C-alpha cells in the first residue's frame, strides 16, 4: 500500500478531522488512519489531487549497476510532460518501468492509483521507431490495428470495427493514403506517424512516447506537436521522452529533468531552469537559457 509522497498525507489527515471524517468509518473494517492515509481511500480521491502517474522511490538496476536511483515523479492528469536528460540518463528505462516492461529493484508505480496491470487499457505506448524491424511483411493499416489488440484480448481477431478505428487514427496523423502501403516503403517521419496512429487507436487516457521526434522531418514534427496538444486539450496525459532542449518550452507544459536520479520535475517555468539544466547535463550542456 502506498501512502502518497511525504508532504501530501498530512493535509488529508487534518482535513479528515476538520470535515468530520468519522462518518466515513461506517461499514469499513479499516482503522480510520488507514482509510484516511490510503491513496485509494475516500479522502484521497478529490479529482484535482489524483495523479495520472505516480512513481515512488523507483530504482532500476541492470545487474548491480543502477540505471535509475530512487525516482519520485508525480504527473497530474492532463499535462504534456517531457522527460529530458543526457544519453544514458535512464529516460527509456523510466518509461519501460512505468509500463512494467522492466522489473524495478525497488519502488512502485501507480497509474490513476492502480498498478499498471490493472490499467493496461488506458495506457498508450509509442516505442522508439528503431525498436522494430520495418522489413516485417505487413502493411500500414495492419500495424495501426495492433493498437486494438489489447482491447481484443487473447485469440479474438480484429474485424471491421478495428479496421475503421485504424483508418480514423490514420486520418488523424494524415496517413490515410498510405493504409495499404508496405511498411518498409515508409520514410522515418511516416513510420513515426504510423506508430502514433497505433497508440491513438487505443483511445488511451495516458500516453507514453519514447522519442517521437527522433529523426523526423520538420513537417512531421509540427504534425506531432499539434497532435500532442490536441491530446492534452482532450484531457489526456502525455509523457514524452525528448531530446531537443530548444523546443521544451514551446512544446510542453511540464518537464522532468533526469540523469539517473530525478533532478527536477514540475511546470516548465518552474523546473526548466539553467541551474537544474546544469545539474542534469554537467559540463556537457551546450544550450543555456
Amino acid at each position, binding site marked *: 500500500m502506498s501512502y502518497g509522497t511525504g508532504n501530501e498525507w498530512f493535509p488529508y489527515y487534518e482535513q479528515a478531522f476538520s470535515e468530520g471524517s468519522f462518518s466515513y468509518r461506517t461499514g469499513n473494517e479499516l482503522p480510520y488512519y488507514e482509510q484516511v492515509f490510503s491513496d485509494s481511500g475516500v479522502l484521497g480521491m478529490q479529482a484535482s489531487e489524483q495523479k495520472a502517474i505516480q512513481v515512488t522511490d523507483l530504482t532500476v538496476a541492470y545487474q548491480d549497476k543502477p540505471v535509475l536511483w530512487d525516482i519520485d515523479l508525480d504527473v497530474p492528469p492532463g499535462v504534456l510532460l517531457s522527460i529530458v536528460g543526457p544519453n544514458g540518463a535512464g529516460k527509456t528505462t523510466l518509461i*519501460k518501468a512505468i509500463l512494467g516492461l522492466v522489473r524495478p529493484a525497488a519502488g512502485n508505480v501507480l497509474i490513476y492509483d492502480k498498478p499498471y496491470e490493472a490499467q*493496461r487499457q488506458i495506457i498508450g505506448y509509442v516505442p522508439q521507431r528503431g525498436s*522494430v524491424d520495418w522489413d516485417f511483411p505487413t502493411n500500414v493499416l495492419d*500495424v495501426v490495428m495492433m493498437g486494438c*489488440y489489447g482491447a481484443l484480448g487473447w*485469440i479474438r481477431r480484429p474485424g471491421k470495427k478495428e479496421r475503421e478505428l485504424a483508418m480514423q487514427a490514420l486520418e488523424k496523423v494524415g496517413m490515410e493514403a498510405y493504409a495499404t502501403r508496405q511498411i518498409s516503403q515508409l520514410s522515418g517521419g511516416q513510420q513515426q506517424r504510423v506508430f502514433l496512429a497505433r497508440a491513438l487507436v487505443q483511445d488511451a487516457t495516458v500516453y507514453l512516447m519514447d522519442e517521437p521526434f527522433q529523426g523526423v522531418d520538420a513537417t512531421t514534427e509540427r504534425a506531432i506537436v499539434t497532435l500532442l496538444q490536441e491530446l492534452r486539450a482532450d484531457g489526456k496525459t502525455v509523457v514524452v521522452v525528448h531530446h531537443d532542449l530548444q523546443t521544451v518550452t514551446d512544446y510542453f507544459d511540464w518537464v522532468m529533468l533526469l540523469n539517473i536520479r530525478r533532478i527536477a520535475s514540475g511546470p516548465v517555468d518552474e523546473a526548466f531552469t539553467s541551474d537544474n539544466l546544469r545539474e542534469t547535463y554537467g559540463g556537457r550542456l551546450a544550450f543555456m537559457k
Partner: protein
Amino acid sequence: MLQGHLDILSIAIVTAAACALPGVFLVLRRMTLMSDAISHAILPGIVIAFFLTGNLSSPLLILAAAGTGVLTVVFVELLQRTKLVKEDAAIGLTFPALFSIGVILISRFAGNVHLDMDVVLLGELAYAPLNRLKIFGSDLGPVPLYVMGTILVLNLIFVVVFYKELKLVTFDASLAAALGFSPTLIHYGLMTLVSVTTVGAFDAVGSILVVALIAGPPATAYLMTDRLSRMIILSAIIGCVNAVSGYWIAFLFDVSIAGAIATMTLIIFVLVFLVVPNRGLIAIARRHARQKWEFAQTMLVIHLFNHEGLPEAETESAIADLHEHLSWDPGFTNQVVKYALSNRCVSRKETQLILTAHGRTIAQQALVQ
C-alpha cells in the same frame, strides 16, 4: 511400388508443411539457428527416454525430446543473459554439448541398440514407410505419416489461433508486453512447437533436412510477399514443392532423398531470389541498367539544353565531338545517343544533335528537381 512412392511422398510433404509453419516465425525473429540447435540437442532426451521405456517408438520419446529442446532454449537464453556470451556463441556452446552427451550415453550404455548416427543426422526417408501402423492386423499406413500429420495439425491450430499474438510479439515485443500479451509465453509456446516438430521430423527425415525445411521455405516466401498471412501459406506450398521435386530427383538419380530435398530447398530459393519481381536479383540488375541509361540520357539532354541557342551550340552539339565535351568513352556516347534517339528526346540534324520538345521537357524537369 506406387504405394511406396505415395507413402514416402506424403511423409515428405506433410513434414515440409509442418516445418514451414513455425519456420516462418523463426525466420522473422532471426532465430533459425535455434532450430539447428534444437534438432541436435534433443538427442540426450531421446536416449534417456529410451532407457526408461526400452521402446524406440514410445510417444514418451517425443515428449522427452521436446522437453530437451525447450531446455536448450532456456540454456541458450541463460548464457546470453549473463551478457558475457552473445547469442550465436551461446547456441554454439549449448547444442554440441547436449548432442555429445547423447552420443556418449549411446556409446557407453547402448552400443548394440539401433540408434544410428547417420540416420540421426541425415535420416533415411526411404525406410520411413517400413514402420507401419497396424491395428487388429490391418495396415493403416506408415507411422511417421501419422506422427507428422498430428504435428502438422497442432502447428496449424497454434498458428491460426494465436496468429494475432504471434504477429504482434514478432513485430514488436515491447508493445505486446505492454498490452498484456506475454512475449515469453508466446516465445516458449513457439519453441515447444519447434521442438516437437523437430523431434517428429528427425525420425523420418533427419535433422539436417529439418533445418532446411524450417529455414528454406520461409526465407523463400519472404522474398515473394509483403503479407504475413501469404508468407505462411507460400512457405507451406514451397516446402511441398521442395519435397516433391527433391523426391523425384532422388528417385531419378538414385541418391539420398533427404539430401536431394535439402538441395532442392536451396535451388528453389536461389531461383526465386533471381527471378522474383521487384526485389529479385534480375529485377534489380535490370532496374540498375535502366537507371544508368536513363541518367546518361538526362545528362545528354541537359548538356544540349544548356548550350541551346548559344553561339557555341554548334560545337557543343556536334555528334562527332560529344564524347570529348562530356569526357565519355566514344562507344558509350554512341550508345547513349542511340538510346536518346530511340526515345525521341533528340533528333539528328546533319552533324548536329538537337533537342526535341520532349527532350527539352525532360531537361527542364530534371533541372527543376
